[in-house]
């Protein structure tokens, strides 16, 4: 099982890796996808660093678990 980036189509082994890819790329297209799902890309990033417990990444990974296309 793997997950496909809803923006650029790159495939990743799990949703934390996919979340890392989306935050790390951070370009307009990826930002807009996250924002279009009712989240705020920048807020998620800032939560990640301002609060303990990996919250920003977990939130994005949870979203991707629901939204990202799964590939075999």
């Amino acid at each position, binding site marked *: 099982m793997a997950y496909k980036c809803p923006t650029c189509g790159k495939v990743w082994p799990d949703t934390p890796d996919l979340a*890392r890819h989306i*935050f790390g790329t951070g370009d307009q297209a990826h930002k807009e996808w996250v924002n279009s799902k009712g989240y705020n890309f920048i807020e998620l990033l800032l939560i*990640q660093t301002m609060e303990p417990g990996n919250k920003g990444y977990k939130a994005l990974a949870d979203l991707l678990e629901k939204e990202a296309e799964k590939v075999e």
Partner: protein
Amino acid sequence: MTKFNVINTPIHNVDGIAKVTGRAVYTFDVNLPHMLHGKILRSPYPHAKILNIDTSQAEALTGVKAVVTGKDTLGVKQGIWRRYKELCDEEILARDKVRYIGEPVAAVAAVDEDTAEEALDLIEVEYEPLSAVFEPLEAIKEGAPLLHENAERNINVTRHIEWGDVDEAFKEADYVREDWFRCSSQAHVCMETHCAVADYTPEGKLTVWTSSQSHYYIKVLLSDVLGLKENDIRVISRYTGGGFGSKFELDSAQFCSSVLSMKLCRPVKIVLSREEEFMATKRRTPMFYYLRSGVKKDGTFLAKEARVFTEGGAYTAMGATALYLTGFFQSFPYIWPSYRYDGYRVYTNTAPTSAMRGFGAPQATFCAETQIDLIAEELGVDRIDIRRKNAMYAGYEVPGQATIQSCGLSECLDRVEEWIKDRGKLPPHHGIGIAAYGFMSGGIFNWFNTPYAFSSAVIQLNVDGKVDLFIGSQDMGQGSNTTMSMICAEELGVRVEDIRLHMGDTDKCPVDLGAWGSRETLMQGNAVKMAAADAKKQILEYAAAKMSPNIVYDLEIKDRWVHLIARPERGLSYFDVVKEAIRGKEGQPIVARGHYTPHRKGMISPAYSFGVQAVEAGVDPETGKVTLKNCVTAHDCGQVINPLGVQGQLEGAIAMAAGYGFTEDLPMDEGKILNPNLVDYKILRTTEMPETTVMEVETYEPEGPFGAKEAGEGLTNPTAGALANAVFQATGTSIKELPITPEKVLNALREKNKEEKK
């Protein structure tokens, strides 16, 4: 050991005679017929809109041949992260807006430098100043002035690294420690400032002499911004007067001289002044570091969490790489079963920050090593034991990131421990601090988007046995020309003086990505070794035919003697064999090629160097002044290729890294650097240099040429941390902000005294 004839023997640098007789011609010395001199006008504002630029008065000045602004360019936003368009954000000649003090806005070409300088005063730029922001922690706040439209909250890039279950591991920790650190900036201070001579001719070809660490990169980046084909541009210069990470991105001298030359079809030379060098070229990345570490009572490392905000300055530059590498090397050279890193690079209205020797790792090492000493002190564990207990070893896999194939770290710790014991009792107010480090041997990443092999080499053997070696790597003083000549001579079985080295010319030499990230010894070295092996094979085919040995015998060449390995006395002269081999090839010289690109070597690098450094420092309790006494380094760079070169790299790294630790800084006021000269910016001088001792711990790196790996850049990593720990040992106070100035030491001592009185 008679294993090698050339490698690990003391050999003069192949450029040595040229350098000690003043014959070496640097870009700074290039003068062409009909050449003009250029100067660059720079922004006095940290953040402003450009409303209008009036160049008419400057153009009217006698002797001025051209004035260009951003409007005379294609307006391409360029950057070294070419695969990621949004990270290409710098125009070099700004058209609409300036984002730091020193950003170029116009350039002049005139008959001499004085006239060009005079013309700068006649250019009228109408600015609309904008509010500016200088600190990353301010710049991410809501409502802070935005530098780039698409970068909300001024966040430029972020990086996240994670392995293991960090939150669970912290729960198991007996002791958790949190610290904040602040790492300062640093200027490269190459003795040859950035400079270029661009010569565009009516045939549509551009030649650029320039002081660079990667002629290939400069060629491609120029092609991006000038609209010329890559191979209509030739970048040359054999000698580069220092680089240290500052000379592999496109700079204002290269760009402006090219734009002016294309307009005039005349050669244009631009040399940056020392002040421009300080104010407007890139610099080491300042970092705000938060570290939280969880360990067991006995000092076993369990979990580490690191967060970094870096002061990015106005543009991306190489900052994205520094951001990743500081996070990766924050875990080095130890085994952290679980680790999490969040790095944020934030745009600010300051000169862009980028690559500098160590590339994010000196900052990481300073913080990590300082904290480890504090943890050891708190737990009552020996500071060498805690490092030994958690040290990386050959075969260790950094989860998801890298595999360590060779590692002499434990032995390095043993050697430094012995030295400390032998040193015995120290004078009062002295302390010995230690720091351990690891570093990469060239990066695997290809954000530059090159379609070429990372390194290539070509060899031609001529009828007299002389070897023409063509390489793309650049020697900026680190000695790669000598290293490559030695590798070639060893593999081919000749002497260094038999080799004619060709480099520093993109028209004649194959591609190499350049001298940065400690690439050359391993990557260019592997390419050279492969080419030399190919050439040797071609010679040995002829030798075998001629000697017709028993088929079970192997042939080899050593010191110009082609012989049977098992019967070294049976052989032929290398020179005779080459002559006849060429005859046998219908008169064609023997040509051989080699190349190297890392494959399946993880995320970062094919190999890692390691080392441990001990710094003995004295602290004057009255003034807070720190004096370096000794600096002892146990060093694993795999197989040493050039011992004289390694020693030079080590001592040079100590000078630069100690400067970072306690004398060098770039203080600013509203984005303006306050000490842009060599009097107020203090690099180390002879009298401040400590005694240096190097202890080589030899390992064999399977991925490196003859077992070699990085030596020189990684050595910049430990010194600031070791120095901080020496101050801690001498005074009992830990300084968490670089540089460690007398003022900070005194303040810390006062604080400590107050605490003790309570």
